[in-house]
Structures are given as structure tokens and as C-alpha cells.
């Protein structure tokens, strides 16, 4: 069992690395959204990534999930699987789940059906044409509905959920796939304080079973997670360490408060 609180993740042996970005650069029309970025996340670790708007946090997730190909550099998963050579579906099948910044659930399907589609199982066109929901699968969905607090909304179209509920549903969909690595892009954006608290509990309950990378603006939330923090700025890692450590780093203070 890897130690979630390992202080120097960067020194992790190759086989303990869940995610390893090596000198990744992504440029859009000459503008470098990621600039020679390197980052290591250990297996089972919970990691927060913070940074001002435009720092490249979402772009980082795009690279890991195959949405964006880097101009240079590599991204390795679980030791030595090169993610930059795979497409989104293949990466998802490897065990990487991603929550988008804007909640993306299937608005016209019911909450239950949203989770059903996320359920692990054959994905081909024929297989899904003849697929039947087995009782144990239905039970897994019910258990997940309970875990994300949506058991009484199972038959409601996902489009009718509140913003916070959509975020939870999306996290629930990711968990149905039992991913090794979970990427959460601003999971509490637009949530009420109470919802934020609930979400922190949910995310903390995931740590250990999954490797979780959380991108967030909300400092209260990041503090509540109590995880190792990476500060991104202009496509590079500016600082890394505990929340108190990075908040006292003068460069971080300048980026957040200065100008």
C-alpha cells in the first residue's frame, strides 16, 4: 500500500509512479500554455493543483487524457505507459477518469442511466446493442447513488439536477469505472458551502483507493483536503509542498496577490 502522505513524491521509484509528466510543452499559436512542465504523482496519492486562471491546469488534464497532444515531452501512466500515443477512449479504458471543469453529464438521460453508461463493461456497438443490466450491476449503481447522495433522484433527467448535484453525478460516473487515476477539474466551482464540505468528504473518502488529482481555486477546499499542493504558473511548477508551505512562499504570494 503506497504511502499517501509521502513527502517527496518526486523521488518515487518508477513502479510507484501513477503519473509522470516529463518536460511537457503545449503551445497555442506560439503561446505556451504548458512550458516544459514536469510532475510526478505517486500511486494512491491525493494531490491538489492550484494556480491562477490561465496557468495551464486544464491543459495539463487535456494532455493526460489525450485531448491535447503535447508539442514535446511525454506523459507516463502507471510507470511506463506513454499516454501521448493513445486516444481518449484508450486512455479512459486504461483507468483514467476525468471530471471536466464544466459539469458534463448526459442531460437527457436519467441519473440512473448516466451511471449505467459509466458502468465498466463491453463498450462495442454490438455488445451495447444486446447488453442487459445484470442484477449485481444494478446494485452497484444503487450503491453509487447512495454514495453520491442522489438515491432519491435516480429517475430524474440529469439536466434537472442542481449544479452541485451534477458535479457529484459526474464524480459518481467516474467512480463507476473504477479508475486508478481520477482527475477532478474544479469540482466545487459554483457549489454552496455545504455542498463544498460534502464534496471534500467525498474526495477524501476516495484517497487511498484511487490516485486523485484535484484542480481547484477554492483555498478553503484545498485546505480541507490537506493534501500535497502543486502551484502552477504560466505553464510551469512554481512551488510544491504542504498548503502552509506554499502559502508562505513569496513567489506564490506574488503570483496570487501581486501585480
Amino acid at each position, binding site marked *: 500500500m503506497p504511502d499517501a502522505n509521502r513527502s517527496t513524491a518526486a523521488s518515487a521509484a518508477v513502479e510507484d509512479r501513477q503519473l509522470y509528466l516529463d518536460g511537457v510543452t503545449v503551445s497555442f499559436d506560439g503561446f505556451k500554455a504548458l512550458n516544459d512542465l514536469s510532475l510526478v504523482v505517486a500511486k494512491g496519492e491525493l494531490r491538489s493543483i492550484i494556480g491562477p486562471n490561465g496557468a495551464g491546469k486544464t491543459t495539463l488534464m487535456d494532455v493526460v*487524457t489525450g*485531448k491535447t497532444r503535447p508539442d514535446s515531452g511525454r506523459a507516463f501512466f502507471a510507470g511506463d505507459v506513454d499516454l501521448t500515443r493513445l486516444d*481518449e*477512449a484508450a486512455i*479512459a*479504458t486504461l483507468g483514467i*477518469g*476525468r471530471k*471536466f471543469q464544466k459539469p*458534463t*453529464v*448526459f*442531460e*437527457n*438521460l436519467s441519473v440512473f*442511466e*448516466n451511471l*449505467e*453508461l*459509466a458502468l465498466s463493461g463491453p*463498450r*462495442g*456497438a454490438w455488445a*451495447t*446493442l*444486446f*447488453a*442487459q443490466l445484470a442484477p449485481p450491476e444494478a446494485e452497484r449503481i444503487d450503491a453509487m447513488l447512495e454514495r453520491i447522495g442522489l438515491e432519491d433522484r435516480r429517475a430524474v433527467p440529469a439536466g434537472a439536477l442542481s449544479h452541485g448535484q451534477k458535479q457529484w453525478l459526474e464524480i459518481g*460516473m467516474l467512480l463507476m*469505472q473504477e479508475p486508478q487515476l481520477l482527475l477532478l477539474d474544479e469540482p466545487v466551482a459554483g457549489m454552496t458551502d455545504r455542498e463544498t464540505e460534502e464534496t471534500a468528504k467525498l474526495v477524501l473518502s476516495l484517497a487511498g483507493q484511487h490516485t486523485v488529482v484535484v484542480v481547484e481555486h477554492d483555498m478553503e477546499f484545498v485546505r480541507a483536503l490537506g493534501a500535497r499542493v502543486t502551484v502552477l504558473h504560466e505553464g510551469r511548477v512554481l512551488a510544491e509542498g504542504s498548503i502552509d508551505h506554499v502559502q508562505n512562499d513569496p513567489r506564490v504570494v506574488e503570483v496570487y496577490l501581486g501585480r
Partner: protein
Amino acid sequence: MTPLTFRLARLLDARGWAAFAAIAVAAAMVVPLLNTALPAGHPLRLPDYMVPLLGKYVCYAILALALDLCWGYAGILSLGHGAFFALGGYCMGMYLMRQIGTRGVYGHPVLPDFMVFLNWKELPAYWYGFDMFWYALLMVVLVPGALAFVFGFLAFRSRVTGVYLSIITQALTFAMMLGFFRNNFGFGGNNGLTDFKELLGFDVQARSTRIGLYVASVLALALAFLACRFVVTSKLGRVMLALRDAESRVRFLGYSVTSAKLFAFTLSAMLAGVAGALYVPQVGIINPSEFSPANSIEVAIWVAVGGRGTLVGAVLGAFLVNFAKTWLTGAAPEVWLFFLGALFIGVTLFLPRGLAGLAGQWRAGLGAAFRRRPGAVEARDA
């Protein structure tokens, strides 16, 4: 019950099955009875010309159903479905041409008249086999299916969506039209294929044959409807709906968006081919104008009017718009296109979910009104 029969039984709910059976049986029985059992001159007697006309509408309904599967569910607005319909029609037309035999104007035992006229000496290889009905039937689904598969594979793999996809499907049907207009293409040029004599040995002009074709079309529509229900009630159907909402989420869940779309598009093209094959012997001709881009746009209007993503709406829309077209092109031909345009704009603006959506709203409204009446709730609970 095996899982599959269970799924089949649940394609519709009890009321749905009852309505389906009643409409299918009525459609298949009433028209032939009104046409044959009533004496000539009886006010309810259906004139002979009405049978193939209704049969034609049924074929259009199958085409609309096909488009609804790919547009209403998978979100692919194909404006080229007329091409698949026409290809199915040409395959059937080729069979019917080969059945003419020596009865053509030139009396050539193998070559259709237009080939003799062009001084061709032998049958092109792609006409081989079409003298056999089973082979022609196979081609009716395989040719449109293969074209849709290849075209769809290229388009969906490159992630061509939305308006761009609609435009290239228009280009596809337009290009096919230009090709089929050419005499050296070997499909009769701008005259197309016509002067059919027999289908499976039955005289295509005979009243009994026309009734047979009409009933076959109704059966095909019923089966196509159930097949589409099977797809849209499956998990694959939910994947299709899902990718309309959030394509990238579907991808990140590990589904191949390309194969889900390809399935919908190809199956849809095959259904369109069947519709075209049933259409041709009933109207007696197939020519390149069937490929005209405007035809494909009309199909989209039928579906929009009926209400997309409901299947039933597509069928309804095809019937209503075509009844209106037959009536208007007779009564005031110059207004038809304006009417069609106004209809499309009106539906888009005021009835985004079409007539089927209106029916749903009306039912919901009625339900709400019923519930508002004092005592109604108690009565329901009791």
C-alpha cells in the same frame, strides 16, 4: 423467458403494443378492403390510383424513420438520405429491368433498352446477378449500407459534425446525382430505369400486385419501427442520446463515438435503401432526380414536423407533409415550396419538438388540469 425475448416484449408497453398492432393491422387490411371489396361507385371505395400513392407514403415513412434514428437519436443530421433511398431504388430497378427480357422495344434478351440504344454490346459487370431477386434484395441493403459505412467512417473518424456533416452529405447526394445523370454510368442516364413489366412473375401494373406491394410496405414499416425501437431502447441507444449531449464525455467513458455513430448511420442507410426498393415498383420509375439535394432536405422537414427523436413523430410527419404536398401540388402547385419553407420555419420556431412533442405537452397539460381539479388526486390515490 430468455433475455432477448424479454427485451423484445418490452420494446413497447402494453398500450403501445395494442396501438401498434391495431394500427398495423388496420393499415394492412383497410386499404385493400376499401379498394377491392366495395363496388365501383360506392362513396367509400378507394380508387385504384390511391393504392400505390398510399404505398409511396408508407415508403416515405420508412425513410423518415431511418433519418430519425440517425438524426433524432444519434444527432447526425444527414441531408443525404435521399441518396441511400435512391440507391436502394436503383438496385430494385435493375432487377425489374432484367425481368423485362425480350419484351423491351428492341427485344434484346439480356440488355435493357437504353444499353441497346447506346450501342452497348454486353452487360456491364455491375449489372450481373440482378436478374436474381434474392441478389437484388441483398444489394438493396448492402449498397447503401456500404456507402454509408465508408462515408461515415471517414467523416466520423475525422470528427466532422454538425453543419459540416450536413453539408458534405448534401455534396454526396449531389455528386451521385451528377454521376447517375451520365449515360456512360450505365443506369439509363436522365431517363433512369422504367417501363417495368414484372416483379417475381407478377404484372407490376396489376391491381393485385399493387395491393401486394402496399401490404409489403406496411409490413416493412412495422418491422423497421420495431427494429428502431430495439436500437433506441438498448444501451447503445442511450450511448447515442448521450453523445448528443456530451460527445467528449462519452469518449472519456471509453466508448467509441465513431462506432456508435457509424452503427446508427449505416443501419439508417440500409433502412432508407429498403424504402427506396419498395418505392420504385409502386411509382414505376427511378431516375437521377431522386438524388436531388432538395429531396433529402424534405425528409428532414418531415421528421422535424413530426418531432424528432420519437420514431412515431417521423412516421406521422412523413404522412402529413406528403398528404399536404399531394393536395397542394394539385390545388396550387406554385405555393408548395413556400408552404414547405414556412412549415419548416414555423416548426423550428414554435414547435421545436414537433407534433409528437405537442401531443406530449397536451397530454401533460391535460394531466395537470386533471390533477388541479379538487378531489382528482384523492380519486387517483383511492
